[in-house]
């Protein structure tokens, strides 16, 4: 019997695969969406349109689940997130429309290049725990973007402010566009912009990025949904699998070395990017 002809085989495979992906993503500190889209798009029989729509819902659900805890503990900041979310969600609509209008092979080639680039960013990007911000810029003062949070490791209240706000806003135009076009969560880009460009403490950058994704991805998700690109058959087991996997991953986090897992995941991501690129070029179909 050919398993590939059985519908339940694909549901089971998707569920097991996304469950493992959820575990790995948490342990590596990477969003599930960025892994899901290139891997499922490269190795499963579904068209990239449906995979991208599911990828957005994966990023959206993960972000929605994490959001309440982050907001309550002050690790995600609404005043920081809202202006950036408005910019990124608007450009993600444009990204989704461009992605749906382009020929499949072009999207595959661009996605492959983007994923290879992202894996290099993940491998190379520096992070600053508490970046130095001498003076808050004018725009962030007008928007009153600043805050305090409790740093458990040092039992201290950390005060933070930001700078280079308009430069970050320009970068969020591109981030939203890429997220919408490729159906990727954009944590890989949000965190460096919030942390390194604006000078937000790493914990606030990671928390706000996670929260921000729900708004950015929601607008792009609606575009895919209203165009007929959202297939519950693929999306639901993927979303449930990755979220259950993430909850297991959180428990395993204490027992593994996240840096080792992160390296393995980056290599997998690089491989998926090369596969997607070669698929788009018609070399490895």
């Amino acid at each position, binding site marked *: 019997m050919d398993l590939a002809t059985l519908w339940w085989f694909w549901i089971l495979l998707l569920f097991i695969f996304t469950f493992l992906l959820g575990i790995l993503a948490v342990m590596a500190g990477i969003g599930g969406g960025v892994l899901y889209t290139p891997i499922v798009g490269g190795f499963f029989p579904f068209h990239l349109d449906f995979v991208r729509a599911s990828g957005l819902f994966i990023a959206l659900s993960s972000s929605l689940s994490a959001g309440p805890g982050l907001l309550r503990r002050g690790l995600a900041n609404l005043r920081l997130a809202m202006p950036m979310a408005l910019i990124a969600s608007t450009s993600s609509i444009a990204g989704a429309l461009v992605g749906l*209008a382009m020929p499949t092979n072009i999207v595959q080639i661009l996605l492959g290049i983007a994923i290879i680039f992202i894996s290099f960013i993940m491998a190379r990007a520096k992070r600053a725990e508490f970046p130095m911000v001498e003076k808050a810029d004018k725009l962030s003062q007008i928007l009153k973007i600043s805050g305090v949070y409790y740093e458990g490791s040092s039992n201290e209240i950390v005060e933070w402010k930001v700078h280079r706000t308009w430069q970050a806003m320009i970068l969020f135009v591109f981030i939203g566009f890429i997220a919408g076009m490729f159906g990727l969560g954009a944590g890989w880009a949000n965190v460096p912009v919030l942390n390194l460009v604006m000078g937000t403490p790493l914990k606030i950058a990671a928390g706000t990025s996670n929260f921000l994704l729900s708004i950015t991805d929601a*607008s792009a998700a609606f575009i895919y949904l209203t165009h007929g690109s959202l297939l519950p058959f693929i999306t639901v087991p993927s979303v449930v699998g990755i979220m259950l996997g993430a909850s297991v991953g959180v428990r395993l986090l204490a027992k593994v070395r996240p840096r080792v897992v992160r390296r393995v995941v980056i290599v997998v991501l690089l491989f998926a990017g090369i596969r997607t690129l070669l698929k788009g070029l018609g070399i490895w179909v």
Partner: protein
Amino acid sequence: MGVIMKVEIPREQLIYAKVLRYGTIISLVTISVAYIVYIAEISPRYIEFGKLMENWGKKTHEFVKETNYPTGWSWLGLLWYGEFINLLLLAILAFLPLICYLAIIPIFVAKRDVIYLLIAIAEVIVLLLAASGVIAVGH
């Protein structure tokens, strides 16, 4: 032993968190149940799985043409089919940020925080525009 310090979180942030928490839990539980109902064929399927498998490798507009899969929000009239109940629940998930924004708009009004009130209203408009199905691509 260290003293745990408390940080004051703005009210709009706490309300956003509360709406999001309950919305997400309810959505994910109902979506899992609806999916089992769909694949177990307790509710009828709009596209038979055999036909779905033949067409899921095609680009969206070809898939829509081959399977007569509804676009926009026209599927809301077909909710007795398993896939569209699931689609509705996924759509609700995507509407959650919008619902959270609507919940915090009165707080910005009360605080007379005009800039964030305008940002929140603009975000609601962007999300509604995206959801409206008005913005479309030609093929």
